[in-house]
């Protein structure tokens, strides 16, 4: 009887695991991934493959070279690669995808100690890095399933003061990053994450609502406000990047503050600056503020004396 297993309490577990959570995020991204292939054709598969393979191989190699425990099994590298790919357009050549993903995985994630230790979202930072290094990452590519005349993204069109068809925006039948255009697919993923209790509604809803309200207040135009939230990377950013556990606040109050901050910065960049898109920058800036937000919103324990 000496082979009884002895361990600390508790002796039962909810069954939750990091791997299962990552798997849920991947499943939630599948509708958007499928939409990207439908809208932009097989070219999007090249972007997806380049990013995901590089992310997993990059993390595996890093762990191997640094003699660290192999962590690719937790699937977080797949999530990073997939998210980054969905934030790029089919115009981005594969070699740029590889370099951008390597930056995201190695410099942003692994060098800081891997999953759980990075202060900024790797996919977001990778995208911003590519934006700076290679200029256009989101624009330029046209959907293959519709006859598009303009190669401008809806945000660029909106910035010129012209209007965009809202239904086209909702279905994603326009130029842009492959995974950001189809809002319908992103909302399906959002609902899945809520049902699986992977995330709470606070960050995405507050983020998007803040942008909507600010546009409504500043332009007084409902259609403009609606077009602005449906265009660009707002939905994919709010649902999948701003809710990243590692780089966003852990408290509910903190998440609301974080989301409001993201919304305000996105609006300021889009409305006042020459630059048409601000979601990535807003999340990156709020990532940096996360530790402070957490300090402000710390809960007092029941019966705790301070």
């Amino acid at each position, binding site marked *: *009887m*000496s082979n*009884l*297993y*002895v*361990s*600390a*309490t*508790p*002796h*039962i*577990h*909810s069954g*939750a*695991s*990091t791997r*299962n*959570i990552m798997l849920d995020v991947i499943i939630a991204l599948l509708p958007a991934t499928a939409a990207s292939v439908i809208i932009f054709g097989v070219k999007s598969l090249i972007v997806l493959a380049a990013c995901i393979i590089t992310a997993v191989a990059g993390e595996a190699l890093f762990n191997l070279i640094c003699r660290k425990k192999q962590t690719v099994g*937790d699937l*977080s590298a797949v999530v990073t690669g997939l998210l980054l790919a969905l934030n790029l357009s089919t115009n981005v050549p594969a070699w740029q995808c590889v370099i951008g993903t390597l930056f995201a995985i190695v410099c942003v994630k692994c060098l800081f100690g*891997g*999953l*759980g*230790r990075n202060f900024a979202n790797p996919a977001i930072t990778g995208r911003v890095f590519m934006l700076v290094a290679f200029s256009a990452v989101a624009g330029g590519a046209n959907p293959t399933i519709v006859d598009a005349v303009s190669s401008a993204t809806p945000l660029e069109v909106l910035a010129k003061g012209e209007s965009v068809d809202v239904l086209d925006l909702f279905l994603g039948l326009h130029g842009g990053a492959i995974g950001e255009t189809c809002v319908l697919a992103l909302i399906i993923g959002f609902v899945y994450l809520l049902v699986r209790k992977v995330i709470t509604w606070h960050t995405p809803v507050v983020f998007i609502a803040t942008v909507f309200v600010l546009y409504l207040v500043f332009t007084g135009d409902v259609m403009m406000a609606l077009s602005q939230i449906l265009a660009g990377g707002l939905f994919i950013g709010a649902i999948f990047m701003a809710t990243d*556990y*590692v780089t966003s606040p*852990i*408290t509910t109050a903190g998440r609301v503050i974080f989301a409001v901050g993201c919304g305000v910065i996105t609006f300021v960049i889009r409305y006042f600056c020459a630059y048409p898109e601000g979601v990535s920058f807003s999340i990156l800036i709020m990532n940096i503020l996360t530790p402070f937000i957490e300090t402000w919103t*710390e*809960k*007092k*324990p*029941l*019966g*705790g*004396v*301070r």
Partner: protein
Amino acid sequence: MRKNISTLKLHHNKHTAGCKAAAIAPPEEVLLPLTMHSGSPAEPIVAAGDYVRIGQLIAKAGSGMSSPVHATVSGTVTAIEPFTQADGKSVQIIRIKSDGKMEKDPNLAPPVFDDLDGFLAAMKDSGVVGLGGAAFPLWGKFDAVRRNKVDTVLINGAECEPYITSDHRIMLEEGELLKAGIELLHKYIGARFVICIEDNKQDAIDNLTQVFAGVDYVEIRPLPSIYPQGAKQVLLYNVTGKVVKGGQRMASLGVLITNVSSVTKMAEYMTTGMPLVERIVTVDGTAVREPKNVKAPIGTPISHIIEQAGGLKCEPAKVLIGGPMLGTAVSSLDQPIQKVANAVLAMDKREAVKLEPSVCIRCGRCMANCPVDLNLEGIAAAMEMENEDKKYTELKRLGVGQCIECACCSYVCPAHKPIMHTNNDARRFIKQYEAAHAEEGRK
């Protein structure tokens, strides 16, 4: 504003709720630790070779907070020796080899008293401790009424841990004894009594409603069946809305909480003179052939108790004394059940999960599920600090002392981190730090 305490919905697994507690064949031997209660160890008054009978005093209460130990079988004391407990502590035990006759001590008689002092002294003699898990001597708990005005006593029959049904059976089978116990408490202490029962035990609620019909100072309070409903701080809040602050005693709020089995066992001593020598133990788990409730002499080895439940149907991977959330895993079936042991669970390979901790991904589930809203991430970070003074200040600021050790955090953690044990380490660190600094102050 009343806050909503975070709780978990666990699978109740109360398979044995309908199993009447059955007497078992006498064990060959019982092992009685002198430390089955919190406080100072009991002091043996017998020696190897002495013949003892059931209920006979074999170790008197030590000084200060302590509780006596009584023989739980008739037979011969074979040794008083050190023994390594399931939790790894080395303690003194009295071994009694049973003669199989289970003879009661003929000198047992109900205690006689007519005031609070006499009542508390008798309570001490009963050997009853907090049977819900705290093991705090019952007399010590009620001694607080000398210093505090206690107006409410919560009788804890929540039994929120999965599997365990021993309190449930007590409430079904010993309603009259419970009533006798509460009547005595009411006579000497006053106060109103609230019997708190989770609503998954409707038959117990019905039974006690009937038993206490017409008793105006007793209320039966059904509560939602959620974990950890029975934890003192949670129960106190959910029933009275009060909160024990750090460093405060519950009695100073005018409330005491005691387990339903403790009161019943106390009443048994007061009415028959038989001290705490046996208790109801739930035997369950995926490796047990016939899950049931048994009335087992305190000190009975686990192996004997499992045998009395039809034995094992497969080799167990893990055996617990107590429930799956808070019980202690044993390395050997020679371990005895102590006064607080409400269950023996034998889990098969599938049920006894082995989990490897990985890095925290900051999902926040531990904090979302913490009944007392601890900043568990902050506590884990503080425990990494090297400067002891800073570490101490930060841990005190975070209020880790408020941890109720319910293990909800560890249960939900996707990274499988032993979060509750980090809290325990933190509390131990605070104690050691304070002790070291108190000593420095004296020098």
